[in-house]
């Protein structure tokens, strides 16, 4: 009975008999639904990273804070720092962008960081020297494998550490923190000189001995104490937010929102979850730190 009734519906009313072109246009229009909301944007927040990186929750939260003041923010994750740099210099659109000193191995920042365009530092990611044994000295006379970030600067620092501790340490580059974690958990590597060291230590997978940092982190030596004060021995990957084509008043408003946001419990919680170091210091001190990290 259900079958004959179904046929009756199809044949009597023929409501589903659509022209192919009409169907295509209707479907395409359906896919265009989100467009109108993007046309009302005041500021475009550009990230050179893909969506899904460690900066994602920070960008989303900061954008939400700005939007509470009535400014519409459109977040765009480009996954391409060269394109981001080009875009930020191309048009008269009002932009905010996040950048990291680490990106310089692939592309330069879109502009020189100054008091005029810097909103503030987002967070700092020092490199942590950590291992499976309780002290670094235990590695002085045994072969070991050390995992580190890719990039000439970190490889050079890793080699200097190796030369100071034990020439039998082999250095291996890992693309991201997930790969490093898997490597330390499975015993593929013994030592880590990586930005994810703090998170690994928190998970009780390693013991951290030292870090690259502008200031000493509690319980850790400075890397420069181990290898001496060589170039980049205090380099940490520094993330910051800056503005392009914003008026002085707009910058002041956004700086105020940033200041409130970075002092909030939510921001502290995000920093803790991401195992990052919170920003500190005045704007001038932050500019100085950013320039140092770009050397």
């Amino acid at each position, binding site marked *: 009975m259900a*079958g004959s009734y179904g046929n009756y519906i199809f044949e009597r009313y023929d409501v589903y008999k659509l022209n192919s072109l009409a169907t295509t246009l209707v479907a395409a229009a359906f896919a265009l639904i989100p467009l109108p909301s993007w046309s009302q944007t005041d500021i475009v927040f550009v990230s050179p990273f893909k969506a899904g990186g460690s900066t994602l929750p920070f960008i989303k939260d900061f954008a939400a804070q700005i939007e509470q003041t009535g400014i519409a923010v459109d977040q765009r994750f480009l996954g391409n720092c060269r394109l981001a740099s080009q875009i930020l210099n191309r048009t008269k659109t009002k932009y905010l962008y996040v950048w990291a000193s680490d990106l310089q191995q692939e592309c330069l920042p879109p502009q020189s960081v100054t008091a005029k365009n810097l909103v503030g530092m987002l967070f700092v990611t020092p490199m942590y020297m950590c291992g499976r044994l309780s002290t670094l000295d235990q590695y002085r006379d045994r072969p070991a494998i050390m995992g580190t970030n890719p990039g000439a600067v970190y490889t050079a620092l890793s080699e200097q550490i190796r030369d100071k501790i034990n020439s039998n340490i082999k250095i291996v580059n890992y693309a991201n923190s997930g790969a490093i974690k898997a490597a330390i958990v499975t015993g593929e590597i013994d030592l880590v000189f990586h930005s994810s060291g703090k998170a690994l230590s928190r998970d009780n997978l390693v013991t951290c001995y030292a870090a690259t940092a502008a200031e000493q982190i509690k319980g850790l030596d400075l890397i420069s104490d181990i290898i001496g004060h060589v170039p980049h021995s205090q380099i940490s990957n520094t993330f910051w937010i800056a503005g392009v084509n914003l008026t002085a008043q707009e910058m002041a408003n956004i700086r105020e929102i940033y200041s409130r946001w970075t002092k909030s419990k939510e921001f502290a919680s995000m920093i803790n979850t991401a195992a990052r170091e919170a920003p500190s210091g005045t704007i001038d001190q932050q500019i100085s730190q950013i320039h140092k990290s770009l050397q």
Partner: protein
Amino acid sequence: MLGTLIGIFVGIMPSIGGSFILLAGFPFLLSLTPLQVIIFYVTFRISSQFSGSVSALLFGMLGEITSYPALKERASIIRQGDIYASIFGTAIGSTVATVLALLLTYPLLFHIDWTLYLLRSEMVFFVLVMIILTSCFWPDNALHHNLGLIAVGLILGTIGFNPVTGQEFLTFGDVYLSSGIPLLPVLIGFVAVPVAYKLLHDCALISFDMARLPSRPQQSLSNIAWHAVAKGSIVGWIAGLIPVLGSAMSSNMAWRVETWLQRKKGIDDAVARLVCAESANNSAVISVLIPLLLFGIAIIPSEMIVYHILEAQGWSHDRFSALDYVLVTSAATLSVMVAYLLCSPWISHMCGFFSRYHQEMTYAVLAITLVSVLIMAYREYSLVYYVVLLVLFSFLGILFRDKDSTPLILSFLAAEQLINSGRIIWQLYF
């Protein structure tokens, strides 16, 4: 629920695979949480397997390649008057197989410590090499075609700046090429567009005959071939672990095993063979997730789309908890039952509708896919780049539509990780 409903639709529509629909639903899936995406994917695949076999049994429509055994057994089952018994048996067998597979998978994911060692670079490299090697023998293509597709996939996957090696490959200084070839134009050009082209041009309208169906007899659990369910579950679970081929071949493998065993015993039980095959199908849907949840390695094309979505949301495989697994288990089990309840009374209407309007459906899905991807490209300031890639890959996809592009897609996705893990192994041992 949405995954189940869409899966039923996909299972019935001939030649429209899961990948095509996942591409069309990409923007929607990005709005879900990672757990919701995984649940959607599992329920979608389970219900598409079931509806595909139901449409194959009832109407001789091959909605899913894994329904091939159902098509083969159809004639025997109709002759014996066992159509509804086989549908009922398939539903129960699929439910039990899903639960069995989930129980087999749980200790592997959460309680067996040695599985951690499967995350080592050597293992990852080995799995990726196996994926490439098994792609060489992709059954729908000749060997030399597979090798050509793999070569193209590896080259496309390597184009761009590699942050680990610090090297650029075939970027010619172009700012767009430096970030590599994006996944979506490759999938749309080599998968979605050729599928749509074939549906619109190469296939005759699906002839659907609303033949009178026999009246439904009362079904009983005691008539289920439980031994076939058990065998199918285990064979399917193991087959699903084989990269690339396992999931698609699971039902075939189980069907062949059961056929051989029956021949040895001198039995001819078509329903048992079918139930064995369909149980294997659903079991494989679960086990195929293991490399994804353990290593973050997707081993079939539709899984790769899902992983791309999960990655964009900041998900990583070490965040998948036991509680998440319980939720996925519940959803998967419910999905089969819901698919059975929905398919039985409505399958004839759905098949009739799709038969009549499959052209319009195809245009609609393709339009949604293309517009969604172009909007994404516009927001990434890469509209022209995406358009050029879409036109190029769509042209190539249509030109080589008679070849299955899966080896190309798999090697494209494996390329960068293969290089990086190979490099790690070199640094570790040499």
